[in-house]
């Protein structure tokens, strides 16, 4: 197909939207970058929290993890990580899996897994924090 005949099928609206063949533009790429920038400091904070909890008994760990600042930072770390890894795993899947049905299955499983793990972690942190 020549360039001229290709252009016949492309309406100007496509150009205005500027979203390309994936229909979502550079959103995926950009979100991966924004979460990675956030995760530089959040990961460092997570590591400091874990090291600070080493060797402590259950009551102390519970109290520290449930304290407002630590709980908020942990929620941010978990939430940002989950979104980042959801995007990353989707990229791995579409890179290597070319069979449509399997790809659909894996991409969906990725979403379910990420939401499940994220909600579980979030629930645990909130439970510690609100002490129910």
């Amino acid at each position, binding site marked *: 197909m020549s360039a001229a005949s290709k252009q016949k099928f492309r309406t100007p609206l496509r150009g205005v939207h500027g979203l390309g063949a994936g229909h979502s533009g550079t959103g995926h790429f950009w979100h991966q970058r924004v979460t990675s920038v956030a995760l*530089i400091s959040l990961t460092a904070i997570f590591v400091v929290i874990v090291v600070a909890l080493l060797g402590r008994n259950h009551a102390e760990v519970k109290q520290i993890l449930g304290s407002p600042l630590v709980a908020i930072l942990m929620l941010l770390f978990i939430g940002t990580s989950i979104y980042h890894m959801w995007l990353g795993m989707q990229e791995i899947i579409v890179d290597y899996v070319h069979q449509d049905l399997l790809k659909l299955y894996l991409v969906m499983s990725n979403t379910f897994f990420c939401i499940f793990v994220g909600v579980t*972690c979030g629930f645990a942190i909130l439970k510690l924090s609100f002490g129910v």
Partner: protein
Amino acid sequence: MAEANTPRLRNRPLSPHLQIYRLPLTMMMSGFHRISGAGLYFGILLVAWWLVAVAVGPNAYATVELFMSSLIGRALLLGYTWALIHHALGGIRHLIWDIGYGFEPAEREILAIATLVGSIGLTLVLWGIGYLAIGGPR
């Protein structure tokens, strides 16, 4: 191909392929970045298990502590620590490229080595601090 059966040409690779040529460090690091990311994807299950156990109570927490201090638990934790730090440093490397720096051959090489040395070094430092915090390997 008839000439492929002549002794001179037989058993020669048609083009350099993954098994044939020496992997450049930067290419290996690209692979490590993806592999460590995939490892962290499943590694977060350890974090989830730990958080849930703290929320459930002392008995569940004791189970996690017991598992984490076993040989398999420690190996998983060591792997998780390294993957986390390596992926974080590798991510910083990618962000440096994203804003347009570090593309010269020497710079790429330095970044790759710095990521590797940094991730292994920081992992060892963290485990050293960890063992100090719990009073030596138990």
